């Protein structure tokens, strides 16, 4: 065993309080497994925002529809990477897709991921962009024109009839996509919620809490992106659209927060055997990340701001500023939520008698830098996607 790892564990040994089983000293699911549900949550949330336009005809959100779809795709492409990188044998990961153990929640990853990527996201984007891609295939320069031809699968039909059909397909796929997005993130929650050995995770509410926090984070992210990208293109921000996103963000955040409070109250009221050690952990290990970051900064303050902007008649500039701050705070809050769920579940012993610590490494395959890279990578992919498939229907060569 390498000496650095040994010394790291020895150091944690000194930070253990109470009794933990001797094998429990190591925190096996590191910051990468925090990043994974965070990224997947953004996918599900962004998609739900997009679906509001197509299924529920919220026309005010139209300017963000394609942006939300591309955001979902960019994050979905990166989402499996943290899982892959944390494996002891990443080269064997194909087994999850080809020889899965059907009783494992984690093995469902292959099916859920393939379904969501191929049948929902890519299909919807293809139908939505098809006519545009056919046009770009004729107008763009070499080699881009060939790329568009391949992407459009060499289809040529841009008759109004074909476009009407595309539109109808988009609507149907979106209808299919909403439950799929629910399954995608509900399933991530189920990975944790179904572990009966762990009282911090084992709860039927976990998948639902995951889902709504996903919607909150996804909406906030698209709002943030819209507010950054639009001015950088030299276009005015559509305030009607922004106000509408903020409203949906508020509704989703209210549901999410209520569920979290319900979960918290339920645990306290039932006060099972594990309550003592969990209280101990929340007070001593998770105070900053749970009470301060997740609840106060990540939820209570954003909720307050959003309610205030709805109630008061602020001018446009102030509203923009407040929305911007809110969206950032919510990202911090939801990331902390993932942190608290994933790492909190591993900091207390299953003997319910003691706590261990998580010392995040900086470098290394499961370190902070890797997590940072994985969090930034989707934005680069998004930049490429926006370049290739401009959401605002412009010619990619700048007309």
């Amino acid at each position: 065993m390498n000496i650095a790892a040994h010394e790291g564990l020895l150091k944690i040994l000194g930070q253990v309080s109470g009794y933990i089983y001797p094998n429990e000293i190591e925190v096996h699911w590191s910051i990468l497994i925090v990043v994974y549900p965070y990224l997947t949550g953004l996918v599900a949330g962004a998609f739900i925002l997009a679906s509001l336009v197509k299924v529920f005809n919220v026309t005010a959100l139209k300017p963000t529809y394609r942006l939300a779809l591309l955001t979902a795709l960019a994050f979905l492409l990166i989402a499996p990477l943290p899982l892959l990188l944390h494996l002891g044998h990443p080269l064997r990961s194909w087994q999850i897709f080809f020889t899965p153990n059907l009783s494992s929640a984690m093995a469902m990853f292959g099916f859920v991921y393939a379904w969501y990527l191929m049948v929902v996201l890519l299909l919807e984007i293809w139908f939505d962009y098809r006519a545009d891609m056919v046009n770009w295939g004729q107008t763009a320069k070499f080699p881009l024109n060939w790329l568009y031809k391949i992407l459009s699968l060499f289809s040529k039909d841009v008759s109004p009839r074909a476009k009407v059909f595309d539109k109808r397909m988009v609507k149907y796929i979106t209808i299919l996509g909403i439950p799929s997005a629910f399954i995608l993130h509900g399933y991530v929650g189920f990975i944790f919620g179904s572990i009966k050995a762990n009282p911090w995770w084992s709860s039927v509410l976990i998948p639902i809490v995951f889902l709504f926090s996903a919607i909150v984070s996804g909406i906030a992210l698209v709002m943030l992106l819209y507010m950054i990208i639009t001015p950088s293109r030299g276009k005015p921000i559509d305030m009607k659209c922004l106000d509408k996103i903020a409203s949906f963000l508020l509704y989703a955040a209210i549901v999410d927060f209520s569920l979290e409070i319900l979960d918290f109250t339920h645990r306290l009221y039932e006060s099972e055997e594990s309550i003592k050690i969990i209280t101990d952990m929340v007070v001593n290990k998770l105070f900053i990340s749970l009470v301060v970051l997740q609840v106060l900064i990540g939820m209570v303050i954003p909720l307050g701001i959003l309610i205030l902007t709805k109630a008061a008649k602020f001018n446009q500039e102030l509203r923009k500023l407040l929305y911007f701050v809110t969206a950032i705070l919510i990202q911090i809050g939801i990331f902390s939520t993932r942190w608290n769920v994933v790492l909190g579940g591993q900091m207390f012993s299953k003997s319910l008698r003691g706590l261990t610590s998580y010392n995040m490494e900086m470098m290394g395959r499961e370190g902070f830098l890797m997590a940072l890279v994985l969090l930034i990578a989707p934005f680069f992919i998004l930049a490429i996607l926006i370049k290739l498939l401009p959401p605002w229907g412009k010619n990619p060569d700048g007309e």
Partner: protein
Amino acid sequence: MGKIKLNINIFQNKGFKDGYVMNKFPDQIIRIAIVFAVLIGIVIAIKLFAIPPELQEQGIFRTSAIERELDHPSQFAGSEICSDCHDEEYDLKLNGYHSTLSCEVCHGAALAHTEEPDEFTPDIPNKRRLCAICHTYNLSRPTGFPQINPYAHNPLEPCITCHNPHDPVPPESPRECVACHANIARTLSVSPHVKLECTTCHATPDEHKVHPRSVRPGKPENRAFCGKCHDRGSDRKDAPKIDVSSHGQNGEKYLCWQCHYPHLPEID
């Protein structure tokens, strides 16, 4: 193509505002279908031809894994085989207090020795350290298990000078109860009963020293026994007095030691 009629809502125009009439199978669907067919074909091909058959096994018989497990080399030989050569020690051990010990408890893993007796010789421990692992006094150890305080019990003397490890017995049968019941003796040392001999309360047959588990010491069987000192009528000056016949909150007739721990009695 033009004649295909599908009775699926997607392709029909009823109830739709966009007025799309389906009379031709949509070109888009065909293209997407080809892509999906190719992808599904690739997946099926991989599943059928590229996955090694041992990974396809899903039952409880993971033959290859079980074979790998079975191939794992052993280190411990088990004690029966030792008797083939070391029958004298083996037989001696069989009838002594160490009969439950496998030879390898003290001599270490020795499968290599059974295969190559001359190449590999097991440990012959003769230091105090090894015996102390089991026989140092520890309050968590079961009562009656022979324990000593290595700092007080003939310090520096190797255990084997007095005890034969293959048939360990005290050099003479223990005179003091404390030799085995050290934890009780410790408790007793801070108790008002410290001056009492163990045998005052426990009738102990001599056999108990030889067969501690099969012949057990007695315990007081009635209240009158404790009453000899603690009854109001007793002339013992230093003992707390109660009315032995009526003592107890609701007049229950428990034995004294069922409520009071005689090795460290408390008055409340």
